[in-house]
């Protein structure tokens, strides 16, 4: 499993009912099921759905933004948005829905404010890095943000941050939160 997913999984208690929005091939959910979680995925890419199904992960093939409203209030213990929010057309609405459907949410995002990204912009180029791997003209990430920007939005939609894990460029957790918005390549938020 990707290192950031291992960190993310660590924020989810054993036995939770988990909805993973943009679950891809279902690695995270398959791992959580081994820990007694009740799992359900949503994924828009059909080939990823087939691979997830092959590993035993139940997946609804759908566009998250169209599908979210159909889930019942408070029907999951944890709703996961792993490296997905930045690809949404309306991230604020997706976060409001996450709050409605889940008791808690886990949101992981790349940090556009990473010093290396800023340096790229100073050089006059759009950044391309491990956490922002696409060229500007082919990226699905239409709503990139810095950590400060994201935290402002979380606050705006009344989501309270219970924990924040900062990840370095090697995807390992940073030990100190000093200058987080400069040093973190990505971050994972546990919100409620």
């Amino acid at each position, binding site marked *: 499993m990707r290192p950031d997913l291992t960190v993310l999984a660590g924020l989810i208690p054993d036995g939770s*009912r988990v909805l993973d929005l943009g679950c891809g091939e279902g690695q995270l959910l398959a791992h959580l099921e081994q820990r007694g979680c*009740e*799992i*359900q995925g949503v994924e828009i890419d*059909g*080939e990823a*759905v*087939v*691979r997830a*199904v*092959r*590993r*035993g992960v*139940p*997946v*609804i*093939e*759908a566009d998250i933004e169209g599908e979210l409203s*159909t*889930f*019942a209030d408070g*029907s999951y213990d944890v709703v996961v948005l792993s490296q997905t929010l930045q690809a949404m057309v309306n991230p604020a609405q997706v976060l409001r829905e996450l709050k409605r459907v889940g008791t808690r949410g886990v949101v992981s995002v790349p940090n556009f404010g990473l010093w290396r990204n800023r340096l790229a912009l100073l050089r006059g180029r759009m950044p391309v890095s491990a956490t922002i791997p696409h060229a500007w003209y082919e990226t699905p990430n239409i709503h990139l943000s810095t950590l400060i920007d994201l935290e402002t939005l979380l606050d705006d939609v009344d989501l309270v941050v219970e924990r924040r894990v900062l990840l370095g460029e090697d995807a390992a957790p940073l030990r100190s939160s000093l200058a987080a918005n400069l040093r973190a390549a990505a971050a994972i938020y546990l919100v409620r």
Partner: protein
Amino acid sequence: MSDLGFVETQRVVLGTEDDPLVLANGRALTHVEVAYETYGELSPARDNAIFVCHALTGDAHAAGHHGDPARRGWWDNLIGPGKALDTDRFFVISPNLLGGCQGTTGPLSTDPATGKPYGLDFPLLQMSDFVAVHQRLLAHLGIDRLLAAVGGSLGGMQVLQWLTQAPEQVTNGVMIASSSRLTAQNIAFSAVGREAIMRDPDFHDGRYFELDGPASQGPKIGLAIARMMAHITYLSEEAMTEKFGRRLQDKSGDQRMGFGVDFEVESYLNYQGRTFLDRFDALSYLYLTRVMDYFDAFADPGAAARIAAAGARALIISFDTDWRFDTSHSVRILRTLERARVPVTFREIRSPWGHDSFLLQPPGYHETVRAFLDRAHEVGG
């Protein structure tokens, strides 16, 4: 991947005077015979059985051939060595439906009470009656639990019924181009088909089989019209355009401008209606369509919760151009099951062929069924 070879339809008596099949409406059938086929081998642990439920006008002959390798079962592309329903690993069971006319007891069968065919005295059936017969077939085969039940259209409705009725018996349910209940439009089409049959002068109150000569074959015009109309709902407008367009039968292009069969699509429908008469009976058409009309899988509010409690899993597939049971039918099943906490996989597959897509192989469809069943096989029943 290869095709199955020669297969034979088997018959078994699953209801007798001493052990009658009591139907949902309380009436009892004292002689129930079932035609079925099986493919592959049952494992020593009896844990690799997959049940195939056919659609409205299907039969037990789902795969392989009966002597002419060119004429193959109706789901031959899905069932066979190395196929999604892999007969090298799975034991596949495919029966004809109760109320049908292709080997299993139905309205044309002899009523033991009178020694004559039932006709309209055959009891009205419900979806749960189909399942009750399927369960007797499983008992006959010595199987307690299915690895999976798979069905398209009416077949998927039976799978859903089975899941709500005995979820502990169906570990994995696969419902393709299916529905939990018909809409007014679905019932309307169904009603017009039945009207065409019953208003045909040759219907004779459903006792046409007592007549002499060609009239004994029943309401041929009505049945053919019912089939022609139903067939329109099985194809998308796009599929019809691609298949026929506005092409004429007469290749010279001279439009005759009459009321005969002039366009290719008319000729096709005529052919569909005509060939249907050779293999299907009007009374079975009435009885089976009525089962679909009355079906309402989630009328019992506890139904979905029972499926969840039994730990069964569901795969639901729809096709984007299906307007017979469009995606909203599948989404209704999906939503109800997901809210009840049943682990559920859903895909809407792109296919130009409408409802009939479940018999074809649009990209992604068989791959999904295969992935679901491979996983089921891996973890076991």
